[in-house]
């Protein structure tokens, strides 16, 4: 097993480290960097609790090795709030009661962000398709859909450019 020196920009900050080649990206982010907002819920890349943005694309960080992130731009849930101002998605999840235990919430919001970046005005069906790779056991999704609609409306109304890391969108 080899060790690799990597340099990754996460939420605008450059992190460097030495990682084993088999180290999963999610373990490096959580255990190595102590950014514990990104969660782990399964071992088959099915649940989406670990979703982050890698070069603007929603990515399940349990499905990537840390070494593959070398030189990339990453955004995690910790990067959503900017200058003490909540992101419209964070606001929407709170306003629409789109979270209960909170465990799937970070991954769900990151997937939603990627969705809104490529489709700023999604229909309910498009939202449901967009988040279908993220499992929530508490809410039944109805309010998550509403929260994403809330964020879409707010982001469009303010013509605010969504917070991105890297090039953004697809």
């Amino acid at each position, binding site marked *: 097993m080899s060790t690799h020196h990597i340099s990754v920009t996460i939420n605008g900050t450059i992190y460097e480290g030495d990682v*084993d080649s*088999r*180290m999963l990206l999610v*373990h490096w982010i*959580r*255990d190595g960097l*102590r*950014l*514990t*907002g*990104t*969660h*782990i*819920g*399964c*071992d*088959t890349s*099915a*649940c989406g*609790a670990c979703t982050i943005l890698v070069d603007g694309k929603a990515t399940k960080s349990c499905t990537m090795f840390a070494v593959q992130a070398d030189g990339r731009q990453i955004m*995690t*849930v*910790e990067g*959503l*709030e900017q200058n003490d101002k*909540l992101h419209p998605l*964070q606001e929407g*999840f*709170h*306003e629409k*009661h789109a*979270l*209960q*235990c*909170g*465990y*799937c*919430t*970070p991954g769900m*919001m990151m997937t939603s962000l990627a969705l809104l970046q490529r489709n700023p005005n999604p229909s*309910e069906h498009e*939202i*449901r*398709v967009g*988040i*279908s*790779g*993220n*499992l*929530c*056991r*508490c*809410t*039944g*999704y*109805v*309010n*998550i*859909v509403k929260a994403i609609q809330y964020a879409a409306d707010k982001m469009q109304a303010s013509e605010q450019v969504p917070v991105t890391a890297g090039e953004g969108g697809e």
Partner: protein
Amino acid sequence: MATEVFKHGLGEPYKRKEDARFIRGQGNYVDDVMLPGMLYGDIVRSPYAHALIKNVDISEAMKVPGVVAVITGKDLDAAGLAWMPTLSADTEAVLALDRVHFQMQEVAFVVATSRYAAADGVAAVDVDYEPLKVIVDPKKALDPDAPLLRPDKKDKQPTNQIYHWETGDRAGTDAAFAEAEANGVVVKQDMFIPRIHPAPIETCGCVADYHKATGKLTVWLTSQAPHAHRTLFAIVAGLPEHRIRIISPDLGGGFGNKVPIYPGYVCAVVASLTTGKPVKWIEDRSENISSTGFGRDYHIHAEIAADKDGTVQALKVYTLADHGAFDAAAQPTKFPAGLFHICTGSYDFKHAFVEVDAVHTNKAPGGIAYRCSFRVTEASYLIERMMDTLAHDLGKDPAQLRLQNFIQPEAFPYRSALDWTFDSGNYEGALKLAMKNVDYEGLRREQAEKRARGELMGIGISSFTEIVGAGPGKHFDIAGIQMFDSCEIRVHPTGKILARIGVQTQGQGHETTFAQIIAAELGMSPDDVDVEHGDTDTAPYGLGTYASRSTPVAGAATALAARKVRDKAKKIAAYLLEVGEEDLEWEPGRFFVKGAPGKGKTIQELAFAAYTNCPPYLEPGLEAVNYYDPPNLTYPFGSYICVVDIDRGTGQVHIRRFMAVDDCGTIINPMIVEGQIHGGLTQGLAPALYEEITFDDNGNILTGNFQDYLIPTSMETPHWETDKTVTPSPHHPIGAKGVGESATVGAPQAIANAVVDALAHVGVRHIDIPISPWKVWAILNEKGLTAD
């Protein structure tokens, strides 16, 4: 003025306090706990469902870089910890000694400096097994030539049968059936409610941290019942209870999965005791589904005796319960089949008799409630399926048959044939509201038109009654500890409040709703009330959150503790205002002198006085504690109507509409109640159409991860519609009943009834859940109904 500060009391959709940390990724779940020098545990598990262990060789594992220790069953046995008691008076292997009883059973515990080194160590442990005959089918477990699966307890249990339990009036029930055979109607149906798993998105785990110098053991634990777990740790491990601190931090869902104590917890504690370092153990998803507490697994035969006009008389139920390798069912001691005998449901049965036989098989132990109160879903499913079967056989409309047989509103408190006292209800009101909301008659007309065109549409009803909120303590316990609950309130001098409760949220929003209860009782804003829970060093003793007991029990304790605070504040007000207590009147937020509303003191002023100018005849300070033992359970109810369309080409069931009318008594926060119902409905949909843990003949689990065990995504989950009626509980201080599990209990049978209803005209009477496209397609194919 008082009315101005009194916002967001009972009945208002106050936004959740706990969201602030979760939406920022700042929740603190067990796997987020990281301590200096922390080691990681991982478990060697059996590949066989039944085998003898000939040898466990750890020598290669000990050579793996980073591996610190490997604990085997023999090591634990030397410390008297190889076996632990279950919640059902059985014993369960912590680490297997000479035999494994199910696939994925715990065999050894590897401790290492990283997750990866621990996994390497697991791969290097060499276990020599001798496979034995496997029993998967619980019916075969009772065959005379079946191997004895638990020779460790053959002295007290010589067969694979764990218990026979029965309740009710056998003679009266038999007589009613004889009468119905002669002059009425008898319907019979077998049904299987398969093994499922609660599968919260956060799996189970812990961090055990033992300090040799202080002798204090701190365990961050995914626990729905931290105090009960502390006591069990003390009893099992022989540790002094005041030196054990269980912290159940933020939990990523529970749904019953986090009620039992699992071998991994015990191993992590032992590893910390022996290494002197903190040890983390977090199971992965396949370990979670394969080895920790499952739900259901009931093989049911039910019969109803009724008059020819459909008036029900008697219910008879026989159930074979598959408890797996160890009887780890999480039930009160008195009720081995939980509250299964709530199975007369919302209907006025004169007689009932229920029998349950529980057996061992070579499957994982469990028998916990999948988001329900002790086997209530099994009970509700069977009676709601049976009512539809009766309607089908009589050619009656299932809604009309229910309306004909409901317990009437004036009959409460109602004593059921199986000896429960229902507190309050208006079943007819809920069903009629649901029927109106969906235009039931219009749906029936549409169904008739569609049938004429060859289209398959079904309408399913479930008019369920739950039984939640255990105690009272004289009937309900965990390992002997009575099921009361508690709240402690501290009012600070400036009138801000810290409250601590004996229950533990896993997403239900206690920090918000319990603040609202206190706010309502004291007439202040819930912004000024913080609620803490889950830390046994600080919270008052409680039995935890499951069986929808938080609001019925700890919610009552919270209201009563707040009233104690108010009573003391009144004494202080009388002193300050120089009047007798009888001369004071309360309005939200303040006491004032009767007839002189300008002369009064706010609760904040009284709190300040409690610390600065307390009457000399009172203790200073303003605090209260209440331990509440409920006089009865509460009985939430509802009526659900599900409308499905069936694709004749694929057999796929499409839920077009789902109307849920719930009645949980007084509503504290309608936003949270609706959220609980949405989630509950989704966990009712799940077993109805998707979830099932299956095994092959060798006991290999076939659905042990999220690729194969299908929990509903946003694509399968319909847009739920909700409505409510409000029938308060007469014995609860604020009339609340509990709501977290209602929809999980009520929904599966509405969906199953809808699918059967869609196919009833071609003679289909029952389909076992989960109703997969394949099952439906096979029926369509048999009936010649498939389409391209």
